[in-house]
Each structure stands twice: as C-alpha cells, then as structure tokens.
C-alpha cells in the first residue's frame, strides 16, 4: 500500500489538525503538546498521514486524538496501550501513537503499560503527566506527591507516588524520555526521537493543569528557577546544569551528588557523561531516581534507548518463516486432514 510518490507535497502542521474545536481549559498544558506534535510529525521523513493512528484512553489528555487530522481511537479508560497493541500487531505498516494521562496509563492502565514495555510493541506512548485526575475534577493520581490535598485526600494523600520512568525501565522499555510542556523545542525533539525509534517509545511530559493542579511543575518551568532544577540529558555530554552550567552531577557509589564546578577542586571531567545507548538499564534507572531526592535536579531528555526486535516484527517474521516452510495455508488441507473417512 505504501506509495511514497503520493507524498511529494510536503505536509504541514495544519494537515495534522482535524479542525475540530479544541476543548481543553484555557492555559492547559495539553495545548502545547498538541502544537508540538502537529508541528513535528510533518517533518518526519516519508510520513504518510493516513498511516498514523492516535489511540487514547479516557481523561482530558485522552481527547487528544480528536484534534489530530489522522486516524484516531478514543478508547476506554486505561486500555489505550492494549487497543494500540492489537492495532499495531494487526497492521505493522501503521505508526501507532498513544496519548494518555497519569491516571489513564499508570492507575487503571498500569498493567497494559508494563506489558507493552516488556514486549517492546512498536508504539509511541506520550504520557501527559499533570499529577492529577483532570477530567474527573481533581482527585490525586498515582503520580501525585505524598501529602497532596485533593478532593479525595482532604487531609493529604498517604500514597507514595509512582516514578513513571522508573516503572518503564523496570519493565524494560526500550526508549524512555521526559520533557516538559513549557519546553516546546525540547518536546519537539523528544517527539522526533520517539518517532524515529523502532520499538516502544515512552515520553513522559510534565504537563500543567491550571484548573486542578496549577503550578506543580513551576520550579521546573519558571524562568528564575528552572535552570537550577532541570538537567538536560545530552548523549555523550557531561551532566551539568545551573544558570551558568556551574553545577555538575557525579556519582558517589550509586549515589548521584551535585558538584560545584565553580570550586576549582572539581572538574567537569568528574561529571557523569550521559550515554543513552548504554546496553544496561542501570544508568537510565539512576537518572529516573534523581527525582527521589529534592536536592537533585530533574532530568529531561532521553534516559535510554536500546534497539531490539519488536514484538510485531517478530510475529510477522515467524509467520513468514512458517509459511515459507509449509507453504501458504490451504483450507482444503486444513479441513481434510488425516484421520478422515468416507461414508458412501
């Protein structure tokens, strides 16, 4: 079906808009994600819009497919990865994206998520993490911080939160990244990277919900604080951050610590050099757990990328192999197998 010639006309962001009125609240971080996706997809080489499908669950974020000018499936709560898995296996020629929220993916949908990671289904999952249940009007979510006061936790929640990147890595996801709604360029880069990854790609986007959880990420997004609180991961580069890149991260044993690069005792060479292609998951895991300690900056970027055969690929290959060996199936043979007898 693939006919690249059809696509000589360059697609634009507009081609990726369905034209339907967007119904998120004013100021919602979801707008930014939509804009970056619509801007980024047209630049993907050989992209055929009709081969792109957006699948989602339920939540504010899960309205996403309606706004995309591609095929879309607004599923049921938590099941987007499972619907997308079936679609991708049935139709490996399609590019299947999942738009989902922290409740949708990590609460009710947790099982499908970890299994999709494990199986390396070739899906691109974007988690709109606003650390709240938006659509149901403000209950704490599995990523809400402990102690959070919400409608269902009037005295503060007693839940420890999930660390989404940790969970993804614990499930052996082959591509794990994080970005922030207020960093459009970085986000665009992550989307591009995910699109290019063959295998399951997971992007966590920190997304502000101005209505029910306004400002949770403000330390990471406000001009005067963000440089001190965000470290941008770049492959092959030392991990440094701060307004003047004056702070670095090094490891003491398994414990990442901050080094003051203004202090002549320290050198940038002590700093951890980011390597997203590390075969092992350990480095990614260390990065994922930087957020455990309040003193450490939050990493954004690609935590880990590893190329290995995808599930859908392997299934097609197995079918091809068996078919090559046995020949294409014949119904005649299938029905009239051995152990038949004739009544005359």
């Amino acid at each position: 079906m693939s006919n690249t010639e059809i696509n000589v006309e360059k697609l634009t962001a507009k081609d990726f808009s369905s034209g339907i009125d967007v119904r998120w609240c004013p100021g919602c971080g979801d707008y930014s994600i939509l804009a970056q996706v619509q801007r980024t997809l047209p630049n993907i080489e050989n992209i055929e819009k009709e081969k792109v499908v957006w699948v989602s669950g339920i939540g504010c974020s899960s309205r996403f497919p309606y706004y995309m000018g591609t095929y879309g499936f607004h599923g049921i709560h938590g099941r987007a990865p499972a619907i997308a898995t079936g679609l991708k296996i049935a139709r490996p020629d399609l590019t299947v994206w999942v738009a989902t929220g922290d409740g949708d993916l990590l609460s009710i949908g947790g099982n499908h998520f970890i299994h999709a990671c494990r199986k390396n289904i070739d899906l691109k999952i974007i988690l709109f993490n606003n650390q709240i249940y938006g659509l149901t009007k403000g209950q704490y979510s599995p990523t809400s911080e402990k102690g959070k006061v919400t409608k269902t936790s009037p005295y503060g929640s007693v839940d420890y939160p999930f660390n989404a990147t940790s969970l993804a890595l614990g499930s052996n996801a082959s591509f794990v990244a994080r970005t922030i709604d207020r960093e459009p360029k970085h986000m665009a880069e992550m989307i591009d990277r995910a699109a290019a990854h063959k295998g399951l790609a997971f992007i966590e986007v920190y997304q502000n919900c101005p209505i029910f959880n306004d400002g949770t990420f403000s330390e990471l997004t406000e001009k005067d604080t963000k440089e001190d609180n965000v470290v941008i991961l770049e492959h092959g580069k030392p991990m440094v951050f701060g307004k003047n890149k004056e702070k670095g991260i090094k490891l003491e044993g398994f414990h990442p610590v901050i080094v003051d690069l203004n202090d002549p005792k320290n050198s940038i060479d002590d700093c951890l050099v980011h390597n997203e292609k590390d075969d092992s998951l350990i480095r990614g895991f260390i990065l994922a757990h930087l957020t455990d300690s309040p003193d450490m900056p939050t990493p954004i970027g690609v935590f880990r990328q590893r190329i290995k055969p995808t599930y859908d690929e392997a299934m097609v290959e197995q079918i091809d192999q068996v078919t090559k060996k046995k020949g294409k199936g014949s119904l005649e043979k299938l029905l009239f197998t051995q152990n038949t007898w004739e009544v005359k």
Partner: protein
Amino acid sequence: MSEVREIQEKHIDEVTVRFAGDSGDGMQLTGTQFSDTTAVVGNDLSTLPDYPAEIRAPAGTLYGVSGFQLHFSSSDIHTPGDVPDVLVAMNPAALKKNLSELKRSGLIIVNSDSFDKKNLKLAEYESNPLEDGSLSGFDVMDIPITTLTYAALEDTELSQKEKSRCKNFFALGLMYWLYNRPMEPTIDWIEKKFKNKPQFIDANEKALKAGYNFGDITERFATRYTIEPAKLKPGIYRNISGNEATALGFVVAAEKAGLNLFLGSYPITPASDILQYLSNYKEFGVKTFQAEDEIAGIASAIGAAFGGNLAITTTSGPGLALKTEATGLAVMTELPLVIVNVQRGGPSTGLPTKTEQADLLQSMYGRNGESPVAIVAAATPSDCFNMAIEASRLALTYMSPVILLTDGYLANGSEPWNIPAVDSIPEIPVKFHTEVENYHSYSRDEKLARPWAIPGTKGLEHRIGGLEKANITGDVSYDPDNHFEMVKLREEKIQKMKDSIPDLEVEGDKDAEILVIGWGGTYGAIKEAVIHTRKKGYKVAQAHFKFIHPFPKNTEEVLRKYKHVLLPEINLGQLAKVLKSEFLIPIEQFNVVRGLPFRVGDIENKIIDVLGGSNE
C-alpha cells in the same frame, strides 16, 4: 487373530464406554484414541471428557479421577450416553467415583493390580470391592493390567515408571479387541507423537498389542462385539471437538472474507484450546496475541478490528465478565468483533472444568447502558464450525460485536463431522470503504451497517471512540435527541439481522402436543429425548435456537402453535426469561444445574410429565 477358542461375535447397535483413572493415567488420551479409531471405522459417536480442576492430584485420590465417556453406534446418535454400559477403571478411586452411574449389570474392567491397601484407602474403601461382593450384579473383569504391561515390556529399556505409563495402551488394546476396532490409527498416532523417542514407540505399541492379544487369548471374554458403521450422510468425515471446530471455523471465515484473522486472548479453561489451535495456523497468517489479561485480549481485538482484521477474542465465563466494559466499546464504535464464550460452571470460579449454560443473560445484558450485541450459539461440537462462520458473517456484515456461545461439553466433546467442501461455504463479502466523497463514519447502508474505513486509507482519516456518536457524522454528540435516536438505532441494527438468519426449524411431529425448545449444547440430549418419546407414542416436536439475539423471525409463530412449550436448560431458566419477557408466552422450564450435560432420560421423563404422565 488365528484363534481356536470359541468366541461369540455379537452385533450390537450402540455402546457407551467410560474410561476412568488417575489424572496421570492418560485416560483423556485413551478416550480420544478410542474415539478417533471408532470414528474411522464409521460409527457415529459422541464423547464427554470429564476431568478435575487439579492438574494431577495425588495418585489414587477420589478427586484426582479423570474420566472420558464415549457413546458410539451404528446409527445416528446425539449424546455421549446417559449411563455407561462399560466402565474401564484403572484404580479403586475410579471405580468408586463412577460405579453409581454405571448401567445395572454393566461390564466393569478393572486393573486389579491397583487394588492394594493404599489405593483402597485413598479411595475410601473399607474393604476390597473386588472381593467383598459389593460388585455382584455387575460383570466384573479384574485384570492385572500393570503386571501384564510390565510383562509385555520386559525386554525394553524403559524404567519401571515409564513402563507403568504404558498401561493405558494395554487397556486400549483390550478394548479394541473387545469392540473389534483396528489398531492402525493408534499405531500411526504413536509413531508420529514419539517421532524422536523410538523407545516409546516400541513400548506403547507393544502394550497396545499385548492388550489386544490378551483379549484374544484370555478365556475371560466370551463375547466380542461388532458395531456396524453408521449409515451417515455420504461424505468425508473426521472426528472433531467443539474447540477445534471453532478454531477451524474462524480460519475459514477469514479466508472467505479475504481478511487476516486476529485473535486476542488470555488462556482459560475450557476455552484455551481455541487459542492453542489457532496459534498453529501461522501459514494462514493467523495472528494470535496471548494478552496479559482478558481485557487486553478484547481491547487488542478491537484495535485489530479497527485495523481491518477479522478480530476475535475467546474466553470462558469469568473472562467474559472482565470483557464487558470493552464489549460496550465495540458496541459504540460499531466494529466487527466475535467474542467466543465457552461456558463453564459458575458463579465466580465455580466449576472450571464442568459445563453449564448460565452465561446467556450475561451475554445479553451484562453491559452498562443499552448495549445490544448479537448472540449465536452452537448446538453440537461440529456445529461450532458453522456458528463460528455465522458469527463472523454477522459481525462483518452488520459491523457489530457478536457473542458466540459454546460450552465445556461442546468444547471438549467430539463427534464425526461431515466436512463441507471448501467451495460450498459461501464467501463473506467485505468491502473496505475507500471513497472519499461524502464519507461519514456513521452513515449506514440498508443493513444499518456503518462503513468500514481502515487506517491507511487516504482521505478517510476519522476518529471513533466510546462517547456517544452523532448519527451519520460520527462526531461526539451530547445531544439528547441524537442519543435516543442512536440507542434505538443500535438495537434496530441487531433486529435487522433477522433478515439474514434462518427461520427456526421444527423437527418431529407435525401435530405435536408439545414443543421442546432449547439452545446450545443441549441439542443432542433434547433430540434423543424427542426421538424416544415419539417412539413411545407421544406427539412431540423440537426446535433449537442457534440465533438468540435476534430471534429468528418466525419464533413467536412457532411458539404459539403448541399446547406446551418445554425448555430444558442447564441454568435456572435464562432463555426462558428472555422468551417470556419478549413474547409473554408461558414456558415450562426444566432446569438442572449439575455441571454435566442433560441425561436424555430426565428430559424424556419431563416431556411425559408435562404431557400428563405415562400414555402406556
């Protein structure tokens, strides 16, 4: 077989045999082999495997007993038989557990070696029944099967344990001799199965032949039986179980529709076989996805349906319960999807290896909102093939989820199947929508089906989902009147299917006083009961529902014709509820919920009862 001993060769019409032994004794295998061979010699047959929920409970215990019942005949038969004529019991527990159901004066073949103190105790026997006279009235053949098997395998290299495992083949050989069946099909099977283990080929064949020869040599059997081939409809036959027939039906349906087949499923007894069969057919391009749970099973199938595959999901009761929310999504998105539910004993985990018909109401109503799906049910093991195709046809033609109900009895039971010529099975016309002009995702054809426009089709990019859809455009709509319209349309679409399903057929007496109706796996038992009562002079007719939602067009007309309508069900009256509320017609119910198929005799008695008692 050159034999001097005088053996009476007796022609009989039908026999019911039950093999019983420990879960580890290979009784299911023995039963299946006997069935396959019996099929090949041309008898009609019907089988009923019955095994415990435990994989292999400790040897010798009562709850570890596994059974396989087989009814075969020189004429048309429809059930695995109410009471066995013959019981093959490999140990005391097997005897104990099955004796009460054996025919009075029936034949018992026991492995006398196993009647030692330990096994007697495990079977909760106070004294040895082979010795204490408690079996008087039966024809008991106590044969030291273990000893004889060891003897036959003396010069093989096997360990004692391995030798002991061959004893079911000895028993099988003996039964082959007794009922005059050839050993070749089983020998062929052994050779294929143990291709890479020649020592097992040798041993099993030796045991089989030893059993056969033992029959020949021993003086104990005075009679040997012949059951002539049944006069079945001409054709090529094979013995088939319901689960295999279901699997084959879907492969055929997909090919006939020109689609790829996708199965998203999670293993569960007694439905796992279908997944297992289909995972073999890679050369047909069949994709089987063993999902993380039942919800992912159906959700993946919904995704595959959106992608343009013939998508199915298979499960049993508790799994169907888990699929309800997603089934509603398929209803709202109007995607073709077949959900196979192999019913088992409930509620909850219930009786996982037993049969029941108690998921009909769940299938009909077990979803939030007004959420209609089509429901069809297979009547016999081989009918699962037809109904899998029918279910697929309805799903694809009407763009709707369809639930196909089978049950544990149909799934594991088997019967000879007159294999249809591949060309005789009609195509299922499917056309993906490709025209860009005037495309609306929820426009409808004359069948009320919406167009199937699959991803990859240029210009038809659209979005579906679980929120209420605007009629025609398919946009999300919260409009009250649109909602009402759509609620009615969804039900109407199911009712439209009436146009393409066959009328309810009535068999039996034209002037019947009683119509016995049923659905699903009770067909055979009802049919035999009807035959028997008619033979006794009662005026009886039968009609069987294979299409339940919607009902065939002529349903009310048929039901109103008879003075009595009797409905036996293996539940507390589920179809009866549906019929009564739909037609306000009184229905006599006959409900037995024992995890087992109906006994023909019980239905017979009930028919006579309804008709006012014996006419003799």
